């Protein structure tokens, strides 16, 4: 039992918090049909972190977080510029920008000393959830993700009405003089914050899955927005706990000589939850379909 508390519970909680932090902005990305932006942001976090490390020489979470937020901002501006200049549809513009920036980040990582520290490509993709254990003190990610998740929840409660209005009918919102651009940027920043926080713990693959899967599954099964958000948080926690448990314990029980990637399994469970939700919804004829 002690082993569970020190070795398994902290990474499970971190995964659950990261998933919840991502699910909150994910609901609004989904509803404003900007789910791809979550994909883009979770990718550009990598070059941001590498660049911040190279520029500052510091591996502190704060510096890397700032780098990642900066990269997300640059990506958002680039996407906007490419869309406007080329007339490309926004999804294509996002795909071009984030793959180019992600690839640049990988090259930067491989060709500089940055890969020596906490950063290597494998961790960038899969995170290092299993190493976030309780060694005398809680892992710093636990506190950081708790604060960020609470902060995002509080911010969401504060800006609820303008955010819902700008997501549902941005043109009408502008006709009322509401600064919809600011609201959109705020959502982008919230997504970046969640992605940065989650990325360092769980890697970019899980971050992408967590931004969209829980919200999409919740959207299929609920009718009201508050219910959708509550359900998305429930799915996020479920995916984290079930995924982590399956990755760690199933091979053990089966007597296999290895464990599975926890973040990969969590993302898989999130995908399965979405698939299940789609099955249920297609039988019920849910409004989201």
């Amino acid at each position, binding site marked *: 039992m002690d082993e569970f508390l020190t070795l398994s519970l902290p990474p499970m909680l971190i995964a659950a918090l990261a998933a919840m932090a991502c699910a909150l902005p994910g609901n609004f990305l989904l509803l404003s049909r900007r789910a791809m932006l979550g994909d883009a942001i979770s990718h550009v976090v990598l070059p941001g972190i590498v660049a911040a490390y190279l520029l500052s020489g510091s591996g502190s979470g704060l510096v890397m977080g700032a780098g990642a937020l900066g990269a997300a901002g640059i990506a958002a501006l680039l996407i906007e510029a490419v869309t406007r200049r080329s007339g490309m549809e926004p999804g294509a513009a996002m795909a071009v920008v984030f793959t180019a920036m992600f690839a640049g980040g990988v090259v930067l990582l491989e060709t500089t000393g940055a890969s020596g520290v906490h950063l290597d490509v494998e961790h960038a993709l899969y995170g290092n959830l299993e190493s976030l254990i309780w060694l005398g003190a809680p892992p710093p990610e636990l506190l950081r993700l708790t604060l960020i998740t609470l902060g995002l929840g509080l911010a969401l409660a504060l800006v609820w009405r*303008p955010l819902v209005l700008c997501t*549902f009918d941005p043109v*009408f919102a502008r*006709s*009322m003089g*509401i600064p919809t651009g600011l609201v959109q940027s705020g959502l982008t920043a919230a997504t970046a914050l969640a992605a940065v926080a989650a990325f360092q713990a769980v890697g970019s693959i899980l971050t992408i899955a967590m931004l969209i899967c829980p919200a999409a599954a919740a959207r299929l099964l609920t*009718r*009201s927005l508050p219910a959708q958000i509550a359900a998305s948080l429930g799915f996020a926690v479920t995916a984290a706990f079930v995924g982590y448990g399956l990755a760690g314990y199933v091979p053990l029980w089966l007597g296999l000589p290895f464990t599975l990637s926890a973040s990969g399994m969590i993302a898989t469970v999130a995908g399965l939850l979405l698939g299940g939700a789609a099955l249920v919804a297609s039988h019920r004829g849910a409004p989201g379909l």
Partner: protein
Amino acid sequence: MQSRAPIVLEARGITLRYGEVLALDQAEASIPAASMTAIVGPNGAGKSSFLKSVLGLEPATGTVRAFGLPVAQALPRIAYVPQRAAVDWGFPVRVIDVVLMGTYRQTGLLGRASAPIRARAEAALDRVGMADFASRQIGALSGGQQQRVFLARALAQGADLYLLDEPFAGVDAATEAAIIDVLKALRDGGATVVAVHHDLATVDSYFDRVLLLNRRTLAEGAVRTTFTRANLALAYGPALHLDSAA
């Protein structure tokens, strides 16, 4: 008498380009108070773009003054009803939530809706015959009901100038009649109504003014004097046949 009514909306030299395409070319409007104006013109004439440009929702050039102010400062007195198709009607909100979106100015952006504000939203729903639908999810509404909800949201704004983009597109006859009743009541109460309108056959019975647009303003004035075959030919070309045009 109409000529003596003060001008509440004045748009001059409205020009809008989408890349190579000139969507609006020096379009203009001069709308007197307590009138009902139909913006009429062929498909692609820029009617919706004109309405949006007037509100500052498109990157158009030109000047717009409303109630004697630059339009950005007059927005609190203007209610805009977008095209129904502009939003995702599967969005998980209730009818009353959409109507309450029109009350932001009373509550402040971050404030909650108080009881009087709710009452005002419910009264707006009642005026469009949708009082029983307040708690329904908007995904369950028909096209006509969606349009009524949009109109109710505008009513909840309590504006003096209403700009509507094709309020009768794809709605049932009962809804059309209900909407026109509400709009006429607004005008009779002193408000000003401008609507993009497609059905030339009803311009005469619904509106008292008409603005003929085809990228630029071809004619504007009272229906009786402006909605003529000659002017329609300017907008639509000479092939148009229309019995109700004088």
